[in-house]
């Protein structure tokens, strides 16, 4: 036993054990500490990463908002100028309606409409001003208005008229939507092809169908278009892509805001794209009755009506109701003051009779002029 006690190794072992134990315990502690530290670092890193993404997102949103605000106010100015210009052009057209300059004025009017539409589209992307609210208008007029806002409008043929009308607040949005669809249709089809518009009532409302004879869209384009057309949230100005594609984005924003649907996923009978705008009942109304003309009752002028070359009752032009069932406005039978050339009712005067009539007329006017001085009602005092 003593030999062991004298063995320095034993003493070394006795002394070393607690040291080693302490070292081991310390090491374990250290490892545990490091582990928690690592965990902490991990969460910290994740937090940082999250905040970074949030910060980037926030900065992006702020930039988008700033862009929108700037563009919105710029477009508001341009839109105001365009509408001012349109008014001026309209006045000029009336003023110089008889002259050849009218042709140029009509062309300028057309260019101005396209210009206004571009500004309006950008304004829509910025949640901006959509232009002046119009009175409720017939669907046919809204479609024609849309037609006038694109460059090659003569290629657009409207096949059907309808008795539907669009409520006041939806006139501009629907017209702008159709204009963007027509712009796409004319841009992606050959210049000599026709764009056909049909209006079809459906149980849920009315469909406006735009068919082009272009190259159509592939599946990828279709799905992208469908996404843009149905998205609740607009991709904004920065999400337009390069080259920027306004059309579907603008339509998507308008459709979401005004509650109609637009789809472009079918193929037209001519091989191109068929775009369908479905207007729900809420956006439709009936056309207000045409305001009564300041007309005279026809019976006030029986003589002139009788001398008109055709009796109005037999005229096939005038059914008592329109083809849509609306009451037909009464014919303005008495406007003409010129009797027909071959009318038997016109008395033929001999030259002597004519001369005596003219003489009597002249004597009458002379005596009238003489009595003017004495008359208290006369306008001419000299």
């Amino acid at each position, binding site marked *: 036993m003593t030999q062991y006690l004298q063995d320095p190794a034993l003493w070394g072992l006795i002394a070393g054990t607690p040291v080693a134990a302490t070292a081991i315990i310390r090491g374990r502690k250290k490892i545990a500490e490091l582990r928690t530290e690592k965990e902490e670092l991990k969460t910290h890193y994740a937090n940082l990463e999250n905040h970074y993404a949030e910060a980037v997102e926030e900065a992006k949103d702020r930039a988008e908002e700033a862009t929108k605000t700037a563009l919105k106010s710029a477009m508001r100015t341009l839109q*105001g100028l365009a*509408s*001012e210009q*349109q*008014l001026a052009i*309209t006045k000029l*057209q*009336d003023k*110089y*309606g*008889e*002259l*050849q300059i*009218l*042709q140029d004025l*009509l*062309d300028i*009017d*057309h260019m101005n*409409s396209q210009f206004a539409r571009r500004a309006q589209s950008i304004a829509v992307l910025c949640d901006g001003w959509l*232009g*002046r*609210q*119009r009175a409720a*208008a*017939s669907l*046919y*007029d*809204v479609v*024609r*208005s849309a*037609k*006038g806002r694109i460059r090659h*409008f*003569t290629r657009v043929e409207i096949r059907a*008229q309808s008795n539907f009308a669009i409520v006041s607040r939806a*006139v501009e949005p629907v*017209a702008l939507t159709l204009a963007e669809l027509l712009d796409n249709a004319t841009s992606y089809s050959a210049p000599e092809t026709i764009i056909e518009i049909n209006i079809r009532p459906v149980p849920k409302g009315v469909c406006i169908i735009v068919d082009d004879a272009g190259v159509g869209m592939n599946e990828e384009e279709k799905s992208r278009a469908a996404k843009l057309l149905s998205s609740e949230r607009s991709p904004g100005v920065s999400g337009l892509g390069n080259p920027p594609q306004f059309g579907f984005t603008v339509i998507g924003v308008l459709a979401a805001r005004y509650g109609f649907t637009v789809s472009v996923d079918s193929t037209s009978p001519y091989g191109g794209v068929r775009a369908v705008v479905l207007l729900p009942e809420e956006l439709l109304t009936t056309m207000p009755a045409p305001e009564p003309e300041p007309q005279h009752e026809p019976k006030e002028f029986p003589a*002139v*009506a009788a*001398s*008109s*070359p*055709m009796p*109005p009752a037999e*005229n*096939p*032009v*005038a059914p008592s109701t329109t*083809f849509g069932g609306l009451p037909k406005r009464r*014919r*303005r*039978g*008495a*406007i*003409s003051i*010129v*009797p*027909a*050339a071959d009318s038997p009712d016109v008395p033929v005067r001999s030259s002597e009779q004519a001369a005596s009539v003219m003489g009597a007329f002249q004597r009458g006017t002379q005596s009238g002029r003489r009595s003017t001085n004495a008359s208290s009602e006369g306008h001419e005092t000299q």
Partner: protein
Amino acid sequence: MTTPDEPDQEQAATPLVPAYVITNGRSLLDDDEFSLITLVTTAQDSPSTQHLDPEKRRLLELCSGGHLSVAEIAGHTQFPVGVVKILLSDLTQAGYLITRAPIPAAKLVDRNILEEVLHGLQARFG
């Protein structure tokens, strides 16, 4: 006079359907085709008017009472005269309207004839 602060009211004066759409982009007529005093009336056996634009139907309605001059028709519509002429020409070509040339103005008599008459009278009575 409207102030620049009221663009809404200003634009209200412009029509929803512009004139160049109503004419479908047709260019203006030559002056000799329709003059302001050309007389227009509806044709006896005109085709169905169902597919016509509302503006054209209105023109037909206006003209159905008898002969009207182009100037009068333009006065009853809100369109420029040139535009009305295009529409009337369309309707005439499609057989809805018939036109009658205006009554020609009296022609100036040839000066030589007057002089000859004068000489004759002078020789006879002078």
